[in-house]
């Protein structure tokens, strides 16, 4: 198939950047979106032009690295990661607009690559369980209802790609933060530090410059792992009760 790609090019963070149109031909419907970009990059390299920079790693839909905003939707028209989007989702002659994640908290590094270390800092602020390693107790010593374990697991499937932030009109990171807080607050080992965790992670989230949540729900609708909006409600409850009985007075 023949396509026209409108790609965001930006030399570095200081550069204003802009769209460049690239006609491309000979794209098989079986190709993944990223394979199509590889074809474009080989053509650009052949011509001596700097190839389009974009993030990718596993190319299997599980690592959370790929992050393209395609035709106005994070990861494009299907509810999947960019690397698992195939060209059969487009038609011959289409124009495809490709942009990086747009958020003040995700500064552009180059072309379609953004800096998502804000997410790392949120996790570092409390998205873990503190344990002195040593003898490990048997996992089945603490009984957990299957429904709770399943719900915690669903929250844990977040891959930290940032599509939620890109989808949100406010660039809010509530879905990402709430998924981690939920996953840990529901399980016995995570319950111990739940108050401090909620306070610290939300403080970090705010400090990074993410927007506020207005319960639009675009985040959950676009999430490639289908993380539920219920996690945001759960986090709000965690935060409210943490603040009421806070040790930070």
């Amino acid at each position, binding site marked *: 198939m023949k396509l026209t790609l409108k790609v965001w090019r930006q*030399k*570095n963070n200081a550069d204003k950047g802009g769209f460049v149109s690239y006609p491309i031909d000979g794209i098989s419907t079986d190709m993944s979106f990223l394979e199509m970009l*590889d074809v474009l*990059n*080989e053509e650009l*390299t*052949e011509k*001596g*032009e*700097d*190839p389009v*920079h974009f993030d990718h790693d596993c190319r299997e839909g599980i690592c959370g690295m790929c992050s393209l905003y395609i035709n106005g939707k994070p990861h494009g028209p299907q509810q999947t990661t960019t690397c698992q989007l195939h060209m059969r989702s487009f038609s011959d002659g289409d124009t495809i607009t490709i942009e990086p994640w747009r958020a003040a908290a995700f500064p552009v*590094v*180059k072309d379609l*690559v953004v800096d998502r270390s804000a997410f790392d800092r949120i996790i570092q602020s409390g998205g873990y369980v503190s344990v002195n390693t040593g003898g490990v107790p048997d996992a089945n010593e603490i009984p957990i209802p299957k429904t709770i374990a399943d719900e915690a697991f669903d929250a844990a499937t977040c891959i930290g790609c940032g599509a939620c932030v890109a989808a949100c009109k406010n660039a809010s990171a509530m879905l990402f933060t709430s998924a981690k807080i939920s996953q840990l607050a529901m399980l016995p080992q995570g319950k111990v530090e739940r108050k401090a965790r909620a306070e610290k992670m939300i403080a970090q989230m705010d400090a990074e410059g993410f927007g506020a949540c207005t319960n639009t729900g675009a985040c959950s609708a676009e999430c490639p792992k289908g993380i539920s909006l219920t996690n945001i409600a759960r986090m709000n409850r965690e935060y409210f009760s943490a603040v009421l009985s806070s040790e930070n007075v």
Partner: protein
Amino acid sequence: MAGLGTKPVDTNHPEFEKAVKGVKDKISKLLGIKGTKSVDYFHKKLGKIMWNDCGMARTAEGLTRAKAEIKALRAEFWKDVKVLGENEELNQSLEKAHRVADFLELGELMVDDALNRNESCGGHFREEYQTPEGEALRDDENFAYVAAWKYQGDEQEELLEKEPLVFENVKLTQRSYK
């Protein structure tokens, strides 16, 4: 690692300076070649050689051919690779070029190792060494060792260091699915 503390480590050391210079030289070299073929071109060519002659079933003839092809491809890479962009910005072509340079070295090593091991064992299947039913035929008398290859320099052949495998409580036998 916990004992390292949080003070910055002093980098005043000849080995450190040598390492930094080595990396900077390699980066300048890759960017300076300004050849005609992309990094992906070499990556794909190497992939085909490995798939065809150092894959699931190997022969001495195929491996010998692969070694010559990889040596030639590696020489071509260092004379004709095209890496666009600069060092001072994020440069994915430069990152890939480093990886493919490593793969060319590793590919040749894998072929050398496969040629050296004149038996079939585990994932290494040499067509010349199989049982009448087509199963792997090991040669425990001569090859019951782990092959550790020692780097001797870029243009030198690597040196084989044998780490013998001695089984005290298990008797080595032929696996059978019958």
